[in-house]
């Protein structure tokens, strides 16, 4: 166990079951996601079965089990976005990136997360890529955006 994790555990000296979710949040903040190893260590620390922790963590959309990509795409699936066709945007994204909700592509470039309302319902449907917002999307505009990011990435890679 590394010191980083140890210092997170030290913030929860009571080792109670109630500590589980705040602890997982802290770990995700530090490490970006919950790896198998981190879940196992958490289980040992709190004396809770790994299966139980995994069950709790998969219940909430907030927890991730793999690293984010370089470009993390969050697709809004709130009510307004839903009625303006965010479902189509999702299938377009999945087609373009060959990944599904919650996954990261093989090269670690893109990752996709479907979230509840982002709070920009007037501009639906929309996605957010690393804090940049792209609004009132259509399949065509989405394709261009993704293409742009791909080119950016390969330019950086080549130089």
């Amino acid at each position, binding site marked *: 166990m590394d010191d980083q994790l140890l210092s997170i555990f030290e913030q929860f000296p009571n080792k109670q079951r109630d500590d589980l979710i705040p602890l997982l949040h802290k770990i995700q903040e530090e490490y970006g996601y919950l790896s*198998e190893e981190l*879940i*196992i260590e958490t*289980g040992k620390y709190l004396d809770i*079965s*790994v*299966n*139980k*922790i*995994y*069950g709790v963590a*998969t*219940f*909430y959309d907030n927890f991730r*089990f793999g690293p984010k990509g370089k470009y993390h795409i969050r697709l809004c699936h709130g009510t307004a976005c839903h009625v303006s066709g965010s479902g189509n945007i999702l299938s377009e994204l999945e087609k373009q990136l060959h990944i599904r909700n919650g996954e990261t592509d093989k090269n670690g470039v893109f990752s996709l997360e479907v979230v509840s309302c982002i709070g920009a319902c007037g501009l639906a449907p929309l996605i957010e890529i690393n804090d940049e917002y792209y609004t009132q999307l259509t399949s065509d505009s989405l394709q261009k955006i993704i293409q742009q990011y791909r080119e950016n990435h390969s330019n950086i890679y080549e130089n």
Partner: protein
Amino acid sequence: MSFTIYVNNTPIEVQEGETLLPVLRRNGIKIPTVCYMHGFTPSGACRLCVVEVEGKRDLITSCTYPVEPEMEIKTNSMRVIKARKALVEMLLANHPDDCLYCERNGNCELQWLAEEMNIKERLFFSRKNSDKRDHSSPSVYRDPAKCILCNRCVRVCEEVQLVTAIEFISRGNKTTVNSAFDKGLNVSSCINCGQCIMVCPTGALVDISHIEKVQSVLDSSKKDAVALLSPAFITSVAEFFNLKAIDKPTNLLKTVLAKMGFKHIYHMGQAADLNIEMETEALLSALENNQTPIFSSCCPAWIKYAEEFQSQMLENISHVKSPQQIMGRIAKYHSESKQEQDIEKLYTVSFVPCVANKFESSREENTQKGISEVDAVISVREFMKMLRSHGININRLLYEKNDKGLEYVSPAGYQMGYSGGKAEAIAHHVNHKIFGKNAEPIKFSPPKNPGSKREVKVKIGEREIGFAWVSGIREAQEYFDLLKQEGRKDIHYIEVMACQGGCAGGGGQPIATYIDKNKQRKKTGQELEKNTTYDSPGKSEKLQKLLGALKGDKGIIEELHTQFRKRDVLK
């Protein structure tokens, strides 16, 4: 305090504090449910047990609702029936509808519910989970497509067995019962006890079947099938077909198995006698060296639990192999009738009320040069299936002459079939070993109170020896913790069975969801005990002969002992 409630306009006397469901059931009113389990805190999750209460706007779940004075309820109004039907229709939304090919065809609670609710067509369609099947375990096969998320397996695994190998993973319509990181049961903390199978209402959890393996051997001329009958298995079959000791169930089974094509048939009671003999020796030497308590080693699920969770206890567990492995070993390598037969030609099949034995037979320690001591393990359920596929009618065979005896055993084997029996057998054998033939019979009287600790202290000679027995891993763990906490040294032998009630409640018994058959099986076992040839392992000439032959070669006794190791699993 008792008062009256009105159920469908009929007055019923109830006690304050009771919940509705047990009251209704007690009065013969059938209430469907899939999540309710006797002895567990009701969760009200499946909502099938809804009833209508006069003056209440919504339907209420009878399993969680306490009785109130003068309450008027309806259990079969149109509203109730419609609500239940809708619930079952939704349970069926992602069900594969492959009843014809299902292990539980004809014995499935979901099938019964669909029939009772008069469901004629599929109303809802949803994604099936057929891609998540898990073949990885040697004992338990999981098919999440058939799972209706009733929570019973998860609760048994956590609350009775303390293992938590499975849990609800994910959320909403994506929920499945699975182990951590969606890995197979083989890397989880599963101890293969099979209690999840016993409570599963559908075919989502079944045992890994060995029927086809065995069938192909029965038909081949290259191999000789050898049947090893465990006493608990004989008890279970006798109980199932309502056979009495006078019907000689063992001899009957011998006839049946010979008809199926088994060449040799052994009574595992002999191995149980050997197990008792060797475990008694282990206890006596531990008493001498002050290394008590000694834990029994005959339950493979308990052994796996100890290897995973309590590795510091491993050295105190007796290293004697379980009766199944002892019998397999003897049948393959040391049988009396063995001629210059090639060991590879023999194919040993054990018949047990257990699914953990399937795992045990595949343990590396229980093989030699790639040859298993026990090649296949048939549970009581599988045996019933084989009976049907072979077209054998047990009741008809009762009229045939069954006088070929197999019962050259002591009652110990049958005693090992229920919780507390083995401790008693060991106590008697300790007495016999110390005093020989002139031993005064000892009194082994278990406490009668249901809540009391399962302990007996027996005065043998000068010494008082403490025996204890626990069944169900939670009960076992709580007892160990208590012993440790109180620093007690007065308990010397502890019998541990992973299933509640011992093998009588084993994971390979016939599925009988709402009926607690453990006690009945114990009674049947105790009746069969009386019919054995010898009254204790010490008096068995056959055992003494076998032991004499075996003891001539120290290596053989070593073969009948095994090693346990710490296991690193996801827990």
